[in-house]
């Protein structure tokens, strides 16, 4: 096993209907029109020397190393900027070219430190390679002339350093920041010999840089290089795997020395990210070997006891014994399990199998409950299946993009880069969000409409948009007639045309001017291919499911379904939200979204699993907690989730956990929920196991083990051990066998196997006989349910109301550098950018409360109170405040409420009535948390120390 080296064609491969035939070095070659001579040569295996060219970037033509000779033309044009032409005869190696290239290299090297042996890029340096390729043997100019050797290294960024003495000013980093990432943080300052790369006149840490790593990846020398490479040296082998952060599901090469990761490099062949990355996936992987990792199983009788390290056998035996005792004492349905969107499909499938077949109950749920469960419900009702409609590539064909309740530059940065690229190319943008998210105005991108609605008014807004379409004659009648259920359409059209749904009538609810809504609706309906991308700002409301259906209605009525550039696309929060839902994690559904009451489906599972299965839906997470508080639910197995931090109304969650007699946590860290647990089973990071993740575009990608599990067992093996101890043995020897079982039981996965994934790289479900290579776009000729179904979406205000005591609305979310509950990212250098949760508040609201920027403020709701620092910003609208939930010590969810989506119980994180006032102390909950942080996490390692 060696390092995976991807082909670099120097300039991007073009897509064109017409092909051009030419001759390169006497060999005939045919390439798509628009391809550069350099890329054409690369396609036939000829590498033309280059330094400023790389195929992630548009050609630039500055290094003058890729010169070629073309018969019938004067001079020596740069092959990177010269497009192929029919009949062209190109020569890439001639004595004249060799002389010119050597001369160019002499100039570069005359101003380059000759410390190759101690340079961190030694062995991975394109400048070094090119010196060899052109046969550089001497530098006629010497090394005593003017140079840049005194320039200082900028090591301010925690993950990479910038050493300008090594820079050849090829501008690859500047162009990567512009073209790939779309941040425009870098520039070339100065002129002529004084030209230098600069992060805008400051250091990298203080600049606009978002640490995506694109510049580091593009750099041909060691100017921009990972600190981990400086420290460890060059990797010796690499393995392609899938990032364990957000739902984009980027493919990475884990570049290794033995079992140690040296760096994670985005894989160009990854279809979700095509070689790009963000600060989390690229750099924030150090948590995997953080000292806080728990690598020994632990048990305790009471949560106030210290943890006691024990053998796997004892811990598994304790867990199984307790679950059996509880079931014997309180009934079969007194226990349940929670699967994780951070774990693999195979692990998730096993947990729900253990609960349904091993426990004999359907009390299994997943963290998608608190994020995208309304997506599953809403899209299934309208389209027939619980998933987004497009692949990410589709946005390259969008003419209009409607972003609702999502903050892609922070939450899904790699998709955001792709989106911004399309927007810079001319696509129009509508943003519906209570905050002025970065996408509203970012370099070379400006939203045509920012519908800055009030939290809780989504459905009123989507109805108003649809009202305009229906009443202004903008319906795609042919699409509706051919593809949709006409009876439901007519009922819906009458409803939506009612005056109460007009932009004018809903303005008082949404706060968005009616004319702005009308203009946005017209643009969406008539601007060409229109796509909707949405996030938790849609789903985490009491009408989350209604809103999903409202968006589906809007897409159908304008014919924006079933082709490139359109669709309704959930941006999933965690890496495997889609997968955990697909795998049958919900209490009412088996894998593939089939209800447990369906006899034929249940028969199939019973036959394979050898157990009778319940036909009744089980408890959802909030229902489990409610029942626990009532004393009817006593035992819970949680794999890879931290409900005590992530779920709403923390005090209710904790009350539920404390009422249980056995809580089993399987995780890599002693998380917040573990404070209330009795058995701790150490989990494994994504680097320590094989499996698959399914991203937001339904893409199933391999996760590949690059190191042994630190605790000795991968998560799927732990679940198997627990199941066996419960008397329900499972006999898998590798996760591929679990996938084979998933494929046997799940029609949409019927064609999926590890062999197929290795062959295709990744595949989007449905993947079966009808679609052996997967399904990039769904509902092309017909909806999964047959005819698309319009649903009436009456606006119903949330019961959470502002008033004199709680006059402001709190909405919560996340930021670029932290992830979910922060368990991973808080254990990385990402803390440099975000070491505490802050409260964003409009200066008007702050001033009226005497709050200044940086003040400690009390945030109080009907559920609870926390203290945190205020950040004054006009990105908020007056009346609305915002915070994140990344830091356990802040306790953002102490403040959020029990209100939830009517259909799915997805919590209403996005609307909480609050008051803000200055304070000089932590809240009582935070004080108690400090104490419990000590008291409930003690580990007694005395026995081991004595030994």
């Amino acid at each position, binding site marked *: 096993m060696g390092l995976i080296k991807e082909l670099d064609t120097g300039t991007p491969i073009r897509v064109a209907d017409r092909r051009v035939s030419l001759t390169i070095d006497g060999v005939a070659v045919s390439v798509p029109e628009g391809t550069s001579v350099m890329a054409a040569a690369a396609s036939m295996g000829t590498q033309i020397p280059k330094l400023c060219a790389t195929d992630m970037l548009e050609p630039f033509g500055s290094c003058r190393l890729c010169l070629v000779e073309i018969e019938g033309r004067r001079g020596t044009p740069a092959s990177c900027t010269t497009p192929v032409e029919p009949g062209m005869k190109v020569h890439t190696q001639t004595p004249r070219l060799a002389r010119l290239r050597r001369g160019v290299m002499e100039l570069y090297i005359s101003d380059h430190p000759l410390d190759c042996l101690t340079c961190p890029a030694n062995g991975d340096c394109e400048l070094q390679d090119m010196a060899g390729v052109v046969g550089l043997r001497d530098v006629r100019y010497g090394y005593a002339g003017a140079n840049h050797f005194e320039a200082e290294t900028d090591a301010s960024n925690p993950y990479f350093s910038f050493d300008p003495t090594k820079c050849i000013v090829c501008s690859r980093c500047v162009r990567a920041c512009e073209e790939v990432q779309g941040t425009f943080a870098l520039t070339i300052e100065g002129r002529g010999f004084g030209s230098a790369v600069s992060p805008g006149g400051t250091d990298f840490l203080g600049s606009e840089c978002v640490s995506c790593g694109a510049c580091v990846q593009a750099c041909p020398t060691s100017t921009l290089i990972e600190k981990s490479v400086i420290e460890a040296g060059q990797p010796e082998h690499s393995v392609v795997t899938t990032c364990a952060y957000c739902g984009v599901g980027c493919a990475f090469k884990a570049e290794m020395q033995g079992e140690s990761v040296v760096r994670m490099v985005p894989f160009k062949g990854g279809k979700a990210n095509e070689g790009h990355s963000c600060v989390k996936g690229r750099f924030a992987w150090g948590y995997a070997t953080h000292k806080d990792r728990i690598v020994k199983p632990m048990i305790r009788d009471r949560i106030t006891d210290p943890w006691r390290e024990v053998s796997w056998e004892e811990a598994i035996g304790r867990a199984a014994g307790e679950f059996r005792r509880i079931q014997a004492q309180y009934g079969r349905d007194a226990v349940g399990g929670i699967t994780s969107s951070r774990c693999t499909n195979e692990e998730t499938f096993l947990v729900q199998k253990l609960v349904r077949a091993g426990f004999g109950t359907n009390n299994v749920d997943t963290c998608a409950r608190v994020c995208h469960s309304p997506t599953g419900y809403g899209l299934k009702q309208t389209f027939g299946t619980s998933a987004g409609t497009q692949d990410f590539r589709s946005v390259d064909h969008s003419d209009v993009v409607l972003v609702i309740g999502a903050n892609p530059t922070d939450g899904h940065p790699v998709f955001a880069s792709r989106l911004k690229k399309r927007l810079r190319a001319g696509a129009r943008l509508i943003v519906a969000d209570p905050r002025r998210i970065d996408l509203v105005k970012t370099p070379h991108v400006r939203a045509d409409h920012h519908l800055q609605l009030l939290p809780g008014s989504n459905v009123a807004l989507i109805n108003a948009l649809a009202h305009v379409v229906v009443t202004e004659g903008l319906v795609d009648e042919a699409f509706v007639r051919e593809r949709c259920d006409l009876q439901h359409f007519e009922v819906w059209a009458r409803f939506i045309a009612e005056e109460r749904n007009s932009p004018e009538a809903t303005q008082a609810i949404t706060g968005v001017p009616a004319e702005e809504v009308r203009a946005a609706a017209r643009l969406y309906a008539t601007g060409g291919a229109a796509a909707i991308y949405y996030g938790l700002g849609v789903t985490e409301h009491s009408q989350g499911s209604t809103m999903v259906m409202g968006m589906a209605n809007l897409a159908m009525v304008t014919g924006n379904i079933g082709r490139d550039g359109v669709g309704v696309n959930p941006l999933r929060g965690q890496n495997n939200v889609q997968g955990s839902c697909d795998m049958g994690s919900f209490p009412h559904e088996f894998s593939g979204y089939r209800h447990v009451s369906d006899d034929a489906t249940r028969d199939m599972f019973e036959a394979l699993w050898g157990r009778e299965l319940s036909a009744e839906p089980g408890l959802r997470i909030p229902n489990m907690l409610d029942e626990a508080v009532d004393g009817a639910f006593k035992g819970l197995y949680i794999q890879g989730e931290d409900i005590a931090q992530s779920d709403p109304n923390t005090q209710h969650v904790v009350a539920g956990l404390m009422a249980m007699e056995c809580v089993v946590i399987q995780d890599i860290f002693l998380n917040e929920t573990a404070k209330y647990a009795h058995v701790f089973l150490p989990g494994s990071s994504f680097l320590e196991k094989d499996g698959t993740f399914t991203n937001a575009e339904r893409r199933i990608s391999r996760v590949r083990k690059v190191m042994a599990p630190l605790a000795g067992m991968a998560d799927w093996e732990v679940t198997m051990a627990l199941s066996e101890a419960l008397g329900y043995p499972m006999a898998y020897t590798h996760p591929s066998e679990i996938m084979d079982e998933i494929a046997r039981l799940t029609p949409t996965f019927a064609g999926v196997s590890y062999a197929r994934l290795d062959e295709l790289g990744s595949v989007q479900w449905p993947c079966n006989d009808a679609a052996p290579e997967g399904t990039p776009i769904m509902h092309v000729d017909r909806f999964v349910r047959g005819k698309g179904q319009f649903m009436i979406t*009456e606006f119903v205000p949330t019961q959470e109301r502002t008033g004199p005591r709680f006059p402001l609305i709190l909405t919560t979310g996340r930021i670029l550098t932290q992830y979910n509950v922060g368990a991973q990212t808080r254990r990385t250098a990402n803390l440099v950018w975000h070491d505490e949760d802050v409260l964003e508040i409009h200066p008007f609201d702050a001033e009226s409360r005497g709050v200044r920027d940086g003040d400690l403020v009390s945030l109080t709701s009907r559920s609870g109170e926390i203290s945190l620092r205020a950040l004054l910003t006009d990105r908020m609208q007056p009346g609305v405040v915002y915070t994140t939930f990344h830091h356990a010590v802040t306790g953002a969810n102490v403040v959020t409420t029990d209100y939830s989506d*009517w259909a799915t119980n997805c919590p209403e994180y996005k609307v909480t009535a609050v008051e803000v006032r200055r304070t000089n102390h932590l809240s009582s909950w935070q004080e108690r948390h400090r104490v419990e942080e000590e008291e409930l996490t003690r580990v007694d390692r005395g026995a081991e120390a004595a030994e």
Partner: protein
Amino acid sequence: MTTERMLTMANQIADFFRSFPHEEAVAGVAQHVRQFWDPRMRRKLLEHLDAGGEGFDPLVREAAARLRQPA
């Protein structure tokens, strides 16, 4: 689960279906509760109805009658 929470959840479902044609609305509420509520939650709903059903939306009351019938 407290009665208050159960009432809130049931009435929220009724709120969604209220704008549907009446027969569809009643069927929709019943089907939703049957498909997504654990048996003990459904039992709680029916017990509260038997005790007078205070606080229930009329649509829930109508739908509940169907919950007593076999699926």
